[in-house]
């Protein structure tokens, strides 16, 4: 049964996943080239000074990539379920509806996690080429809230898509955006180091939350 569920998610996700993979690789390549370009046109010690002391982020081009990835993944997974009310097909399967929806988001979140690891590893590798390892580790820590943004965007989009009523969709959209808005307040590196565990814990509330729109879809109440 689990394999069947994975099969369906895979069929829905494969092209989106390929596209996302290409976008991520392209984005990392661009990041590499732009950092390299900086070091070609400026003196290395000055770039280091800007980065460490003035806290300029040379890698903030990737800031919104995880959020975009989360939204695209959710659309790829739940768009086909919602078109023409196909969600009803899944809800009739002899499986508990909540477990079904959770298995879907587990797949989506898993896919997101793989891409997030790719991003983090890529970011570390690229920064470590031009900076000491402390700076590379700092870049990954700085990017963590953005990666959490991917999680929030994924669940926000999922809520919007699963919800049958327009009014409630707007509510979920606002909710997702309001949370996302808290993840991009940085003015320099690693400013989320202390708050991130709390924000990550709060973002876990999205996991049970996805059951409500599915429940409402089932009962149209």
């Amino acid at each position, binding site marked *: 049964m689990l394999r069947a569920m994975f099969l369906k998610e895979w069929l829905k996700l494969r092209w989106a996943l390929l596209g996302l993979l290409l976008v991520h690789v392209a984005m990392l390549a661009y990041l590499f080239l732009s950092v390299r370009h900086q070091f070609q046109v400026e*003196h*290395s*010690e*000055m*770039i*280091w*000074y800007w*980065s*460490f*002391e003035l806290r300029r982020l040379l890698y903030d081009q990737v800031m919104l990539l995880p959020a975009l990835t989360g939204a695209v993944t959710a659309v790829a997974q739940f768009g086909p379920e919602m078109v023409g009310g196909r969600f009803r097909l899944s*809800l009739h399967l002899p499986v*508990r*509806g*909540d477990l*079904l929806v959770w298995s879907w988001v587990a797949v989506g979140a898993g896919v997101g996690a793989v891409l997030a690891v790719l991003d983090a590893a890529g970011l570390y590798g690229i920064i470590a*080429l*031009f*900076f*000491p390892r*402390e*700076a590379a580790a*700092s870049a990954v820590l700085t990017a963590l809230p953005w990666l959490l943004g991917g999680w929030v965007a994924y669940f926000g989009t999922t809520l919007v898509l699963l919800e049958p009523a327009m009014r*409630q969709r707007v*509510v979920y959209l606002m*909710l997702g955006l*309001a*949370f996302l*808005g*808290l993840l991009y*307040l*940085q*003015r*320099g*590196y*690693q*400013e*989320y*180091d*202390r*708050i991130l565990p*709390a*924000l990550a814990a*709060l973002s876990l*509330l*999205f*996991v*049970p*939350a*996805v*059951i*409500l729109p*599915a*429940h409402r879809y*089932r*009962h149209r*109440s």
Partner: protein
Amino acid sequence: MTARIARWSLLLLTVFLLAVWLPRAKDLLFEYRFGKTDLFYSPVLERFVYKELLGEGHQFVYRDQDGQDYGREAFEALIPFIYYKNMELWGKLPLELAGQRFDKAAIQGERLVLQLDPDELPDHRPRIQLFPLLEANPGRARLRFPEDIMRPGERLGFIGSDANRLDPELTRSFSEAMTEAGFRFPVRTTFGRVSILKPFDAGYFLVDDDGRLFHLKRVDSEPVVTPVPLPEGLVVRHVKVTENKRGEFLGLLLARDGRLFLLGQEDYALTPLPLPDYDPDRMALKILFNPLNRTAIYSDRTDVFAVAMDRDFRPIDRYQREMAMARPRLVDRTWDALLPFSLTLQDPNSRYLALDLRLHGPSALVGLLLALLPAYWLLRRRGLHGLAPIPSLLFVAVTGFYGLIALLLFPPERNLQPQRATHRTAGAPPLGSVVDGGH
């Protein structure tokens, strides 16, 4: 069941986001120019004087501590060392004060401002632990950044910035010099001022594994390491290095226990500063030097404190006042009464974001009660009777209007049972769990 958990998760999430965003929206709408009170010690009056913003706009008062008002020009004449350029313009130089004469050069020679803001403290800001160690004797007018960076750790590493590779020779010679001076690795903390826009370079102060302080400079490409003697029991929290032309003090040293010292430039002598109520974690501090006095002024968002000292940092006088702008306005009091708490992420005293819960106090009971009434009405309309609305009401009783809004956005499911009962009394088979039918 899971649908109920889902709803409660969304209620919590909504309250959290509202508690962050509504106060932000309120600030966006109602925040005002927060003019901190400028407090000085007047060597003319030998009393404290201040300039304070009243209301919105440009309405300043210039007043002394006894409530005497002054015109702007008269006020500036009370603190002539601050406004010495105006004094010069108005032909009031040289000054005669306390039986001494001060010309422009004398004033300039004594002037110094040392500052320490809460967000500069090492545990208030993230810092990548890599520091450029400048050549202290550049042999030319301007300082420049070296092409290597210092990595304090198990040894003193140096990494070339062009190749991004460790320089083994530099690393070895500096680490050895440290060890020879008695430094015990690893380096615990590093303090210094990373800039080339300063009159000279004083290098870094490093705390070793035993908590001892060392001064490191790079002079003619060679390491110069000097142990800094510390009084017994002093644990260094921060050293604010402020290279200045005056040459007497190199900066400030903050101890873990809150004591603040001036750090002598030549002999590293520590001069204690008597600052009652000073809390480095949330107060900005300024030390003003003039030919006659030193004044320490420190303030948080509500109060400003000042200690006037003589040239030897012995206190002469002190003063404290609540700033006019810090007094809560009607909009603030109304806000605090309507909502039970606010959450902030950004702390003006730190570069780290943190979740800070501010409880609004007893006046918030008003808002809680106001929110409970519509909440009760809503729950009744959804057909919840008896004990059923209690959890939601408790929720609103704690979260007030935040909770009410959340409840409106995610209302409980309609309870259909009692309505049916009025239609028909018998013959209906039992329904499943209508209220909370999970899948």
